[in-house]
């Protein structure tokens, strides 16, 4: 998340710069257009309006004389001077002033126009200005000619004829000026449109910028928040680590305590062993001396006491050893089968003659069964011992030990008639390729003191004791049928949980 968010932040900044730049460009363009309108177009329009005004003045001046000549009355009612008589040459001063003023006005008008035209140099309208100049000159020429006629005392009819021409030329002049004004106004309109567009662009850019800034702020907020979360997660992880190491420490302590206890147990066992050895001379010699001592003698009594004390001491040692054994973590009612078998098998292997090979097939994962270590151990050694004895005199003797997990439902399984409750069991089988067990013996094989061995080679208690112990643990031991001769013994032991929460076994 961190790296990706950094990229997003960078992109955000670049976008902000881009949009700001576009907005600024729009602003600059708008500003330059505004400046052009203000500095250029506006003054020109003003001048064009002045021009038109100027032309109007010429027109009104010329109208004055036309009125005087055509009606014989001055235009202005205020003028109380004598009117210019029809058909007469103007003779009064007022009349003469009027004419002089007219001539001055027209001359000034030409001057002014050339000034204005000089100022208003603008690309497109320059053709217009030439037209204006021409039309203006023509108009003033006609105005002056009318003035001349008035001065010379021409008839009204004669002046009326010029009046049409004058009006025609006035029309042209005004049209020329209007054309220039229209063109210039279009320029201004164009410029103002562009200004409006620039302002719109700028506004859009600013809006975009605003949105981007919002988004950017949100992103920054998210990044900061996720960083805060990550920091908190790291703190939690540290706390968890501390907790785990605390737990681990306690576990290690417990383990150390257990190991100490085991070591103590071993030490106690060793001490008991040594004490037992030390008691041998005490018990043995005192017994012997007691027998040698004369009847009723004091020594006999004393020696009896010594022997008794030694015997009590050995009894005490037996209790101590039993206690040290029970203190170990080995439980009375369950054990881990694979480990126990592995130990037993390695010992059993050492006792086999070279003519016998032992193969084992054990599952690799732990298997907990409901019988104590000692019983299982004894059973295994018992069966292997019997197999070994059965293989005496046989070349290439084979003993196969295997363990598997089976489901017992009903009493028949693989042809074994097992007498156990339904459930899950481990099946330990020890098979040999010896002469096998004759049918007539099978029934009695678990009976106490039953033995096929020669006298002196075992009292025949092994299988019987094993059978009792196994059935007491909720299992069974059977002779399994074997193809091709040989004997196979199978021990069924119920599976349990290592911690003790077992399912109820249905009683048969």
């Amino acid at each position: 998340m961190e790296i990706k968010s950094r990229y997003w932040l960078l992109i955000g900044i670049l976008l902000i710069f881009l949009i700001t730049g576009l907005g600024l460009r729009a602003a600059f363009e708008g500003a330059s257009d505004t400046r052009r309108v203000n500095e250029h177009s506006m003054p020109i329009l003003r001048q064009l309006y002045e021009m038109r005004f100027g032309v109007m003045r010429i027109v009104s001046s010329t109208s004055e004389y036309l009125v005087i000549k055509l009606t014989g009355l001055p235009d202005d009612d205020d003028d109380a001077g004598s009117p210019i008589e029809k058909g007469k040459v103007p003779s009064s001063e007022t009349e003469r002033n009027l004419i002089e003023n007219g001539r001055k006005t027209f001359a000034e008008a030409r001057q002014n126009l050339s000034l204005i035209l000089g100022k208003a140099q603008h690309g497109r309208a320059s053709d217009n200005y030439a037209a204006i100049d021409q039309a203006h000159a023509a108009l003033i020429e006609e105005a002056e000619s009318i003035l001349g006629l008035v001065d010379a005392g021409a008839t009204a009819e004669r002046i009326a004829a010029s009046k049409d021409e004058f009006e025609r030329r006035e029309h042209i002049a005004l049209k020329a000026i209007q054309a220039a004004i229209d063109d210039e106004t279009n320029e201004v309109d164009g410029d103002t449109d562009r200004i409006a567009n620039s302002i719109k662009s700028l506004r859009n850019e600013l809006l975009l910028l605003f949105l981007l800034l919002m988004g950017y702020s949100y992103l920054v907020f998210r990044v900061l928040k996720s960083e805060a979360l990550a920091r908190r997660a790291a703190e939690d992880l540290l706390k968890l680590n501390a907790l785990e190491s605390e737990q681990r420490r306690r576990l290690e302590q417990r383990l150390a305590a257990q190991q100490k206890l085991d070591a103590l147990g071993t030490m106690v066992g060793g001490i008991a062993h040594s004490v037992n050895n030390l008691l041998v001379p005490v018990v043995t010699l005192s017994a012997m001396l007691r027998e040698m001592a004369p009847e009723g003698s004091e020594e006999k009594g004393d020696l009896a006491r010594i022997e008794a004390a030694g015997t009590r001491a050995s009894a005490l040692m037996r209790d101590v050893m039993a206690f040290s054994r029970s203190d170990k973590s080995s439980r009375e009612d369950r054990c881990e089968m694979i480990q126990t078998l592995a130990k037993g098998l390695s010992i059993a292997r050492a006792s086999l003659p070279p003519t016998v090979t032992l193969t084992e097939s054990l599952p690799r994962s732990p298997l907990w069964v409901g019988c104590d270590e000692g019983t299982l151990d004894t059973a295994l050694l018992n069966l292997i011992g019997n197999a070994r004895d059965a293989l005496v005199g046989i070349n290439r003797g084979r003993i196969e030990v295997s363990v598997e997990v089976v489901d017992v439902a009903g009493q028949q399984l693989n042809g074994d008639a097992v007498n156990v409750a339904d459930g899950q069991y481990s099946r330990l089988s020890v098979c040999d390729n010896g002469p096998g067990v004759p049918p007539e013996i099978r029934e009695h094989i678990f009976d106490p003191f039953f033995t096929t061995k020669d006298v002196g080679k075992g009292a025949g208690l092994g299988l019987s004791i094993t059978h009792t112990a196994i059935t007491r643990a909720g299992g069974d031991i059977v002779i399994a049928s074997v193809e091709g001769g040989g004997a196979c013994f199978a021990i069924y032991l119920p599976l349990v949980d290592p911690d003790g929460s077992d399912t109820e076994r249905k009683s048969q």
Partner: protein
Amino acid sequence: MKKVLLVDDDPDVRYSTAKFLRFKGFDVTEAESGLVAMTLIRAQNFDVVVSDIIMPDQDGLGLLNEMRRGYPGLPVIAVSGGGRIGAVEHLKMASFLGAFAALQKPVPPDVLVETVRRAIGEAEEK
């Protein structure tokens, strides 16, 4: 007199047990290790062997093994101060390895004598 071979690495145990058995009428030869015991067995005929099974270098069990293979007719009485090898108790181990009997030290003297006599008796019956 019946001949007893007594094997134990503890000198006090050897001395007191041998003296007692002689007192009871047995001809006792002493050996302090399984190795010495084997040498003696090859050289002489004994009627019974009484041996500690926990001696240095696992001598005792090794002796038992060799005895079972080499001299099946010679009964061995295993004696031990107790304890275990792994999960297996020593005396159980001795039974597995073919001892006639496995007794816990200190053996009550009368029990020892009784067992010795029985071992010899049964061996003679064959």
